[in-house]
Structure formats: C-alpha cells, structure tokens
C-alpha cells in the first residue's frame, strides 16, 4: 500500500526510474537477448523472391526489425551494442563538466585568481558563437585529431565548453548561501576557504547539483547528436586509401556515428538516421523526466 501511495505521489520519479532501468537493462544485458547479433555480421546481398540479388540497406521488416545499415548490419543490434559506449561518453562528459565547474564556481565566488573574469569571458564568448562551431574548430586541431587518446580529449573539449555556464549558475548559488548568517559566523571564527567550501556551502547544494547534473545529460546527448550529423568521428583510424591519399575511418559504435551519413541516408534509407536519433531522444526523455522527478521528490 505504501508503495502505491509513493508511486502516485512521485509518478514522474518512478516513470523516470523505470525508463532508466530499461535503458540500463538494454545497455548491459541487451547483447544476450535473442535476435541481437553480437558479431554485427555484414550481409553483402539477399535474394528476393524473383531470384534477384538485393544489396543493403534493407528496410525494416520481419527479419530486420529496424532495418539494416549500408553494410547490411542489423540496426537493432547496432543500437544495442553501441549503447554502452554512448552512455559512457555522455555520462563522463557531464561528470567531468561538473567536476571542473564547481571548484571554478567557488573560486569565481571568492574572486580569487581572476577566475570570475575567466568565467564571465567564457560565457560572453559562448553567448555569441554557437558551441557546435567551436566544437568543430577545436576537435579538428592536430593534437586532438591525431592523438591516440582522442576520445579522452573529445570528452574534455565537450565538457569544458559549457563549464562557464554551469560555473556561473553555481556562483550565484554560492553568493546566495554566503549571505546567510552561519557563513558569516564561520568566517568570524576563521575557517579556511576549503573548509568553507566543503562544510558550509556545498552541503546545501547537493540536491540542486543532482537535479541539474541529470538535466544536463539531456543537453550533452543533444550536442553529441549534432556531432554525428556533422561527421566528426569519436574514435578513428588514419589510413592511406590510395597512393598519396589519406583518410580517417570511423571505428566507434556509438549512436551518433550511425548519423554520419544521414545527409544521404535521409533521402534513400531514412530508417538509418531515424532509429539512432529515436534512441537518443529516449535518453534525453529519460533523464529529463528523472530530473523533474527528483526535483519534485526534493520538495
């Protein structure tokens, strides 16, 4: 009875949790489900009824629930197999962003080391230039482009871009809390800045931190989707394709990489970009609902 009342009172939280658990289930156990091709077998052609060889991509049908991509790999299997990598990237971007932003916010609040100027300049710059343009310009720089640990750099670039926004948000929160009397009390007995940060200010922000962190996961997913459409690889190999000609090839299974060719796919095989984009929309939905749910729960 208690459970039912809890669900009725916190419907959004429960729905979000349920969607999140489904997502986790498919991420970690999806590959063992029947109908999922773990090896991602490529099919060169299939025979039609009239004995004509037909090349991929194949439309969604009974054999291929969501259709296949241009190499003849089953799209459903691709999505399930790529989920782990995608979620790992999204969540690490968000967490790294907050790990950098919170200390920055405190330093900006204290106006030490000139961090407050840095934060306001970052925000000013990004309120003029679309972040996706900056992402393109930064990740095509040679040290990042050719690095062995490209994925790590990419995550850091994506995390760092919006650090200013998050830092500004929490700087305001810090200033608000700092005007309370107990902080003045702490100051008067001479606590160190670190202790002030850890014991006086931060404990009041755990709830807000969680809500905005979960909400940010949706935003990161959106940015990652845009990267896919622009054809920026997450992990890649550099090979010589012909005498004197070199090219990068994608080696990642993450969902945005299924959108790479969407410019052509959208005209001929629209299911290839549609289902990965749907999967990303599901992730955004899940975390938005969860964030709202936690917000209501906190009240």
């Amino acid at each position, binding site marked *: 009875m208690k459970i039912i009342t809890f669900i009725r009172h916190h419907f959004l939280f429960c729905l979000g949790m349920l969607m999140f658990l489904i997502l986790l289930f498919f991420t970690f156990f999806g590959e063992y489900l029947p109908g999922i091709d773990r090896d991602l077998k490529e099919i060169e052609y299939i025979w039609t009824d009239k004995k004509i060889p037909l090349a991929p991509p194949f439309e969604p049908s009974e054999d291929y629930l969501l259709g296949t991509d241009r190499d003849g790999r089953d799209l459903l299997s691709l999505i399930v197999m790529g989920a782990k990598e995608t979620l790992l990237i999204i969540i690490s971007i968000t967490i790294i962003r907050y790990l950098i932003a919170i200390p920055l916010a405190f330093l900006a609040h204290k106006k030490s080391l000139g961090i407050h100027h840095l934060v306001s300049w970052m925000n*000013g*710059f990004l*309120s*003029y*230039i*679309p*972040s*996706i*343009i*900056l992402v*393109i*310009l*930064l990740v*095509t*720089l*040679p*040290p990042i*482009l*050719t690095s062995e640990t490209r994925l790590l750099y990419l995550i850091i670039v994506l995390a760092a871009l919006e650090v200013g926004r998050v830092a500004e948000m929490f700087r305001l929160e810090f200033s608000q809390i700092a005007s309370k009397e107990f902080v003045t009390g702490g100051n008067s007995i001479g606590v160190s800045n670190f202790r002030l940060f850890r014991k006086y200010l931060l404990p009041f922000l755990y709830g807000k931190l969680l809500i905005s962190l979960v909400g940010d996961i*949706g935003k990161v*997913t*959106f940015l990652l*989707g*845009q990267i896919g*459409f*622009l*054809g920026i690889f997450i992990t890649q190999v*550099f090979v*010589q394709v012909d*005498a*004197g000609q*070199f090219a990068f090839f994608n080696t990642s299974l993450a969902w945005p990489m299924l959108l790479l060719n*969407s*410019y052509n796919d*959208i*005209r001929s095989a*629209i299911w290839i*970009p*549609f289902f990965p*984009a*749907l999967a*990303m*929309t599901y992730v*955004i*939905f899940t975390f*938005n609902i969860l964030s*709202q749910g936690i917000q209501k729960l906190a009240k």
Partner: protein
Amino acid sequence: MGWDLLKSFLVFLLIVVGFIFILLLPREMEITHHGGLVFTADFPFTFDLFKEKVQDFIHHFQTEKGFGENKMGVPILEELQTFLQRDLHIIIPAFFLAIFFGMILGIIQFYFREKWVGRIQAFLSWIFSSIPDFFFYIGLQYILIKLVANGYLQMNLFGNDDWYSFILPMIAVTIFPMLFMMKFTSTSLENEVGQDYLRTARSKGLQRLFILKHMLWNCWPSILNQAQFVMLYILSSLPIIEKLSSYQGAGYHLLDSIFKNEDVRSLAFMLPYLVFMFATVVLSKLVKHWLVPIKSGALR
C-alpha cells in the same frame, strides 16, 4: 545608454578577433612524397606555422581589398549575398515567431495555470522541448516521405528551389526556442504573483486581463534578456538543419568551408552570424530602454 551600446560593441569586436584566432590555428594535413609509392601524412602544429597563417591572412585582405574570390572565381561577397538571403528567410521569421508566439503561449499558460487547459499545455510543451530538433526534423521527413510515396502529397521535400522550401527547416528551428520563451514568460509572470501592487489593483476592482498587462510590463526586462538566447539557439541549429534539408544557405556553406579549411570563406560566412547576435543584443537593449524607461526595481 550610449556607453552601454559602445561597451557591447567593444565586446563584439573582441569576440570577432578571438574567433579569427581560433579559426586560424593550423589544422591542414601535409603529405610528403618520399619517392616511389611511399607517402607520409603529417599534421604540423607549431607556433611558427600559426604566425605564418596569421600573416597570410592579413596579406590576403591587403592584396584583395576585401574577401576576394572563392576557388571557383566567384567573389565571396557575391556568393555570400545569395546564401545569406536564403538564411534570412528562415532566421527572421523564426526569431520573431519564437519570441512572439512564445510570449503569447506563456501568457496563456500563466492565465490558465490552475485549469486543465494550462496543465495539458504545460505537459505538451514539456514533451516537445525534450525532443531534439534534428529528431523532430527527421521524424517529420519520415512522415512526409511516406505521404509523398503513397501519393497523398506532392511537394519537394529537399533543396531551396521552391517558395515553400524554407518552411520545414524554419519549423524545426523555431519549436525549441518558442517553448523556451513560453516557459520563461510564464515563470517570470508567476514570480510576480503575491506582489503588493497586484493586491491594490485587485482591491480597486481592476479586471484580470488588465492586471495581467501590469504584470507583463514588470516582466519585460527579464523576458527581453532571453532574445539573445533565442537567436543563439536558432543560429546553432540552422547549419545542421540546413545540411539535412540541403537548403543551401550561409549555414550550410559555413560548415562546408570550415571542413575544407578555407579560412577567409569561413570568416565571411561566420561574420553575418556574429552580426546577427550583436544586432539582437542591441535591439533587445533598445526595446528595453523604450519599454522600461526606469531601471527595473528602482520604484519598489
């Protein structure tokens, strides 16, 4: 006011210079031939190369007395004019539709917030704002393609040749900023609830609609501050939506020129975007100055 605008202009200039420096960072591939069929590729990234690129860039402007020509021999400014016109067809209606309808919907949402109309509206807007615009666009295309394939509809879904070509991309970039404006308007109206001047107005028997007008006037400063965000969102999404719909506007060619490392051309396509942002900032400041002559809160 004049000092304020001058300050915005200086910030704008600094941002343009900052952008040019990021754009000019060396990123070209260098292929060396070692004789026979042996080639190696390298991506040099040194400060000397950067200095050289900056000098070349300045030299280019000095010799060409402007942006010069693109690889096909067409003057870049001429090319830009054509593409920018197509962009304006999307940006201007999208911007004003997002702000205007966003505010109207926000007011409706606030007015009916206790009734089921408001609840349904809040729910729907929340769902739509969780859908990324690229998915919205692909989904719309999927439906339209099915309709066209089955003969229910006859239209060109891609390109920029028809008079209606701009509508689909425009809808895709308008929805999110519109919902954002709506949410922001209704939230800032809700923040006004409980103020003393509302009780006075009500005690004198003023109708609800007129009270709403008074509240709205108090919200102008914070609402108008969001114009910059609306513009930024439209400009960020436009290149990608243009690419998906092969609507050949400035955004499409901006991405193209950045990926091809054509620095001068990239700057030529990026500058109008920065100018749009600057114009939005100036416009919102002017409107605020005109609508709210006194600094907000000065009377309270």
